[in-house]
């Protein structure tokens, strides 16, 4: 099963965000902040994206292909909302920092099973998602749930578990009348 940029844009459109990820990553690298006021504006977008992609490889089913393209586009669209974007970038950066602390490597360089256990050791599997909560709550909200939302609210991800028109996705009024899951979005 392959995810595409188009899937990400479809989910973003459902959220009212248009044109997610249409622009190259470096456009979104904010200028390095001179000030150190702790608002994490200095987090390079590349770290955010690679951390989110690496987390996507853990939380998505193993057969998923195209994760990089999909997550990149989704995260770029998502981080356009200033407040949510800043929180997401901070949570991703903290996850990366924990990986460097505990394993001496960026999160994205760890083998997949180590990324999986790191997330579980942080409690991101059982924590309540809270946008401005504790570290585990924030990672659950901004990393795990953000990625799961993007996946299972997309027609491609939904189809994998039996529903090509998931809640949150404006998939039209044909699918509810059909007896079987449509193979592609259009038919």
């Amino acid at each position, binding site marked *: 099963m392959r995810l595409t940029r188009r899937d990400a844009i479809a989910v973003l459109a*459902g*959220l*009212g*965000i248009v044109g997610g990820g249409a622009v190259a990553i470096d456009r979104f690298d904010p200028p390095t902040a001179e000030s150190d006021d702790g608002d994490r504006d200095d987090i390079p977008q590349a770290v955010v994206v690679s951390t989110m992609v690496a987390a996507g490889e*853990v*939380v*998505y*089913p*193993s057969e998923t292909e195209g994760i990089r393209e999909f997550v990149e586009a989704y995260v770029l669209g998502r981080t356009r909302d200033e*407040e*949510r974007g800043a929180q997401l970038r901070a949570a991703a950066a903290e996850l990366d920092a924990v990986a460097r602390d505990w394993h001496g490597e960026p999160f994205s360089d760890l083998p997949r099973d180590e990324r*999986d256990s790191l997330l579980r050791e942080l409690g991101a*599997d*059982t924590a*309540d*998602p*809270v*946008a401005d*909560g504790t570290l585990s*709550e924030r990672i659950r*909200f901004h990393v*795990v*749930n953000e990625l*799961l*939302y993007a*996946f*299972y*609210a997309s027609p491609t991800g*939904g189809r*994998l*578990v*039996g*529903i090509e*028109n*998931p*809640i*949150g*996705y*404006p*998939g*039209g*009024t044909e*699918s*509810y*009348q*059909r*007896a*079987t*899951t449509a193979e592609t979005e259009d038919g």
Partner: protein
Amino acid sequence: MMSTSNHAQTDRTPVSDADVCIVGAGPAGAIVAQRLAASGASVVVLEAGPRFDGDRREQLERHVRPGLGTPWEMGGPRDEFTSSGESFYPLNAGRVKGVGGTTLHWQGMVMRLHERDFELDSRHGVGADWPISYTDLKPYYAAAERELGVAGAVDNPYAPPRDEAYPLPAFPPSYSDSLFAEACERLEIDMHSVPSARNSEPFDGRSPCVGYGTCKPVCPSGAKYTAESHVEKAESAGARVVDHARVRRLEHDESGTSVVAAVYTTPDGETHRQTADEYVLACGGVENVRLLLLSASDQYPDGLANSSGVVGQYFMEHLFAGMGGRLDRPTRQNHVGFNTSETHQFYDDSEPVNGLKLEFLNYAGPSPVVDALHAETWGDELRTQLADAYGTHIAMGALVEQLPRADNYVTLDTETTDDLGDPVPEVHWSVDDQTRAALARANEIQASVMDELGVDVEWTVGPDNTGPAFHHMGTTRMGTDPETSVVDGECRSHDLQNLWIAGSSVFPTGGAMNPTLTIAALSLRLAESIQGRMP
């Protein structure tokens, strides 16, 4: 997270020379406002809640994603209430304060009451008769269907008489309806379409339904009708709609025959007086009572429009009965958030006398995306969990009528105050034995369908675990006798000649049909009555 509601409107001072002051911008108030503004009257609407501007992305996310709070910001100190009856009443789950009122959150099923609902006492010796008949309301029902843009088909053999088609074509039946249809045919149960205040095609400048599946509590496409439509039209016709304006009391003249001002407080802490010739109370079935009781004066120590003493009494709800389980086949649920089939076959039965209607759900069982966000695992394990959980659920719902009883009531809890220091509403409610028996009957029919279909039943909601459908009715009942009712057949209060009440609080009985089409029809009629008094 930032809120979409804001205080962007800055001038909240009263309008001078207003003809009509309407309190509340839900459908009851907004429809009156639109009609009267269009006829040239100077109209001001005072709305306690905010305007929810912009797209509905924030509400959509709040609904689907855990951890973001309630979509319509209900439940703070402004919305305090007390539930004192045998059954807990979750008031804030059942209303929204904002421009558009509770239709921001509603489901949008809209059907007419049946003829018998207007004459239950005469026909069956229970409840009360309305001072108006179905025939009186019929043209207003038709007009209300046009106003709300109702999608429907004339395929319901049990519906009351009608003279015209619906303004929009019905949504076709769902795949799961076709599964039910086989069983219902064998049981001789007639299924039919569900009139829906939801665009099946573009209408009134709003999008057709695009299948977000989140109708309740939010339709991001605008396909679902909300009273924001009428607010917008009222404003285009010159009405002034003031948000964050909480009306705290109505003042009357020395003779006690007319209301002379609506006193309201705005977020800057200022208190204003809006004067007008006519006043329309449209705050919903609970807050209408509260405002009348808060307006007590020396002359009216028991509250305004309450010489009968029945303001607040006869609070009625519709009760939910349901049953669901799993089938050995895919059932294709949760693609859309509304139902496409019901049966009203048992509605007019006299055993039980309570009205009851049955629904075939299109949203039985879990939604994979919602489950994923609550899961305690991820990866392949989650995928397997979701695929196992989704796919074969099927369910029926029902609404059951509750007859009016004086011991179900809304009053003021003088011990508890809101953030402005005003006593909060107290809802005293319980489910009586007669209603329980009707719930059991609904379950019995549901069980027969489930059995015929071969469903492995996993859950039942019935007499012992029922809950309200959030339809607040009966608390300022309509009648001809000022000793026993609050408003007359035109929805004007018996006591004060320029005070009108819009909404389901005027229903003497509530049937088992969702109330808002009847609310809209009564509002259209009420607007006509006020128009008749204008110079």
